[in-house]
């Protein structure tokens, strides 16, 4: 059981090790220059002066005219405001030889601000001002004020400011509780797809967190509880933005960059190839730049290739080969190991300082070479092979003197070999095409030449088989060999020879018509629905009369039977009933001509109910009578 545990732990650690993160985003020298330019803008007030002066000092740059800046700070200082004192104190600290005059009132004001009732930002500003101005402060009081503040306001910025403040206090104070906040705060970071780690409050908060955490950790000399992968993810988040919205954002990025390159525990290493990672005989050195996050070269590092192998095979060409440092760039002569052309997977380790983070890098290196064509043989082979082939050898880059003739009884064949110019190893580039171009008609047909098992390229043209590609157009075709590959330095386009092809059944159109794909199509005329054929009006009228005629018959029959209306009583309901009934029939006619169903139903309801009532009365009376 214990063995199994141990074994699984070993496997897990191996797996984790192979998947160590490397920074995907980092500042390049142009980005650092841009950051410097943003921070060097002329300042308008004390706050921007603070950001510029202190920000530039983090980047290791001194302000140009220190005296003028100092005067500006002194003149804009408002001694009754803690914030103003903070900016002035910090900025003057960054400038050399700039002293801010301090009065007792100022000191009292700053000391009074250190209490539970002030905001974390006020506590931070007063403590930093006191510390920069060299005034004494009671560290334990500050600690208790901060702890009270954190318990009241639990947000990210308050805790970051508490961390920053704690890093200015005396080392004898009990900073343990505040130190624990780093871990809690780190847990609040959002992991975005395993690449970024940032606060939802934004870039500035994340950058300030990094600088505060490392400032405090350095101050108490205890490693911050951040794992290597987390540090790299923070680097990705902070340095993914290359232009900054505000001076405070640029300032936060500068302080984060400074703390990540200068702290005692974690120094992320940025490894990038100088130019494309490609090697050839003319360029045999693989050059790597190894810097910290501020693009300052790490000259103390020693760079080593742990293994270099081709993408396909796992055997290592190189193992444990060191890079040599030359003018702040690490280089290695890879061509000395005589690699074949192709892509190689390098595993590089950077050692030299235990603080280095992300010091195992995987690189993909391309080795290119020049190709040479050997033994290009052109021949015309008879199909029934009764006559032996005549082979002509052509040397690159000349063209064959005589043109080759091939008609339906013959095949045209071409064989050649592709080798590496220097090593003579056979090559199989990705693109080997044979192009036949008819000079008169401009038509071109392209075929692929395939290598056989011995890497000998063969191309055969059977005129009868391929006549559809040529549209059966006979004539002189210029034969070109086209060759290219990502690892070839000299792609080839070589007019090898002229081939005269004769096709049987020349059913070619007299001119080549360009494909009529994109010409307008014939217009479609819309056919409206034909109205149905109606019978002539005479017929319709005749039949109408015919259909109505039985009514006459009915009247005659009724008359004969003696039907009469002698029993017609003139009581009001009878009259009303008959009027109502007539009105309903009239409504039917009006419905046919003018109304829709809803209107008809409405009128019908009115008339119908009247008729019903009247009819009911009438029939009741009739029933009584009879």
């Amino acid at each position: 059981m214990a063995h199994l545990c141990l074994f699984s732990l070993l496997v897990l650690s191996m797996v984790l090790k192979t998947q160590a993160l490397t920074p995907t985003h980092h500042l390049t020298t142009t980005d650092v220059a841009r950051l410097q330019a943003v921070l060097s803008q002329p300042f308008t007030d004390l706050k921007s002066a603070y950001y510029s002066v202190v920000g530039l000092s983090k980047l290791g740059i001194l302000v140009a005219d220190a005296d003028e800046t100092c005067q500006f700070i002194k003149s804009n200082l408002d001694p009754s405001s803690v914030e103003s004192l903070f900016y002035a104190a910090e900025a003057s600290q960054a400038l050399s030889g700039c002293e801010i005059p301090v009065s007792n009132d100022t000191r009292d004001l700053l000391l009074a601000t250190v209490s539970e009732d002030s905001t974390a930002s006020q506590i931070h500003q007063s403590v930093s001002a006191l510390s920069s101005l060299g005034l004494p402060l009671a560290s334990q009081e500050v600690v208790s004020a901060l702890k009270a503040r954190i318990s009241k306001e639990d947000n990210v910025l308050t805790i970051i400011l508490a961390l920053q403040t704690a890093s200015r206090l005396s080392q004898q104070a009990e900073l343990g509780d505040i130190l624990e906040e780093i871990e809690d705060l780190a847990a609040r970071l959002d992991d975005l797809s395993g690449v970024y780690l940032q606060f939802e409050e934004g870039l500035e908060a994340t950058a300030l967190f990094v600088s505060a955490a490392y400032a405090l950790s350095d101050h108490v000399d205890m490693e911050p509880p951040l794992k290597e992968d987390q540090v790299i993810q923070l680097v990705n988040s902070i340095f993914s933005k290359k232009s900054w919205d505000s001076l405070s954002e640029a300032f936060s990025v500068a302080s984060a960059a400074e703390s990540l390159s200068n702290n005692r525990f974690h120094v992320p290493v940025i490894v990038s190839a100088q130019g494309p990672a490609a090697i050839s005989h003319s360029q045999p050195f693989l050059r790597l730049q190894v810097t910290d996050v501020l693009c300052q070269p790490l000259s103390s590092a020693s760079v080593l290739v742990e293994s270099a192998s081709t993408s396909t095979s796992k055997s290592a060409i190189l193992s444990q080969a060191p890079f040599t440092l030359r003018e702040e760039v690490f280089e290695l002569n890879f061509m000395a190991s005589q690699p074949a052309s192709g892509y190689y997977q390098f595993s590089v380790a950077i050692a030299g300082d235990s603080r280095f983070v992300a010091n195992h890098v995987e690189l993909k290196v391309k080795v290119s070479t020049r190709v040479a064509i050997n033994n290009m043989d052109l021949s015309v082979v008879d199909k029934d092979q009764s006559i032996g082939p005549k082979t002509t050898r052509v040397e690159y880059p000349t063209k064959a003197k005589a043109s080759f003739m091939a008609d339906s009884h013959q095949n045209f064949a071409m064989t050649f070999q592709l080798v590496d110019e220097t090593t003579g190893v056979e090559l199989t580039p990705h693109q080997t095409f044979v192009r036949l171009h008819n000079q008169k008609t401009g038509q071109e047909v392209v075929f692929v030449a395939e290598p056989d098992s011995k890497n000998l390229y063969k191309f055969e043209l059977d005129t009868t088989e391929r006549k559809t590609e040529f549209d059966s157009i006979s004539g002189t075709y210029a034969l070109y060999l086209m060759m290219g590959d990502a690892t070839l330095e000299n792609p080839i386009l070589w007019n090898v020879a002229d081939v005269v092809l004769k096709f049987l059944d020349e059913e070619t159109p007299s001119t080549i018509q360009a494909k009529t794909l994109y010409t307008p199509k014939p217009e479609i005329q819309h056919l409206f629905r034909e109205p149905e054929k109606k019978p002539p009006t005479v017929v319709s009228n005749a039949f109408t009369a015919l259909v109505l005629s039985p009514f006459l018959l009915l009247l005659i029959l009724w008359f004969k039977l003696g039907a009469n209306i002698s029993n017609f009583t003139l009581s009001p309901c009878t009259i009303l009933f008959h009027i109502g009934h007539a009105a309903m029939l009239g409504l039917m006619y009006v419905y046919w001509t003018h109304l829709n169903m809803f209107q008809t139903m409405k009128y019908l309801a009115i008339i119908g109910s009247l008729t019903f009532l009247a009819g009911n009365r009438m029939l009741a009376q009739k029933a009584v009578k009879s």
Partner: protein
Amino acid sequence: MSNSVISVISRFLEEYASSTPNKLKVIDAYLLYIMMTGALQFLYCLLVGTFPFNSFLSGFISCVGSFILAVCLRIQINPQNKGEFLSISPERAFADFQFAHTVLHLVVINFIG
């Protein structure tokens, strides 16, 4: 053969003329009228064509519907059937006939187009 058919028919006509009450004969005349109208419409359709089909249908259904309703009325009014229609007086039958016709005409006019 045809002789017996003719004699049956003539006998039937005699019976009819003598024993049927006048009211029923009036209704029978009406039935004949309706039937002829329907037949003529159908003849037109056969000869000339079914355009417009909806009009033909509506007219034909009107004839058929009216015929059926008139037959119902005749059955209900017939004194010989009085035993079967105890709760329905002739006046009531006529009222039903009226109402059903109203509905029929509404539908027919809707469909005639």
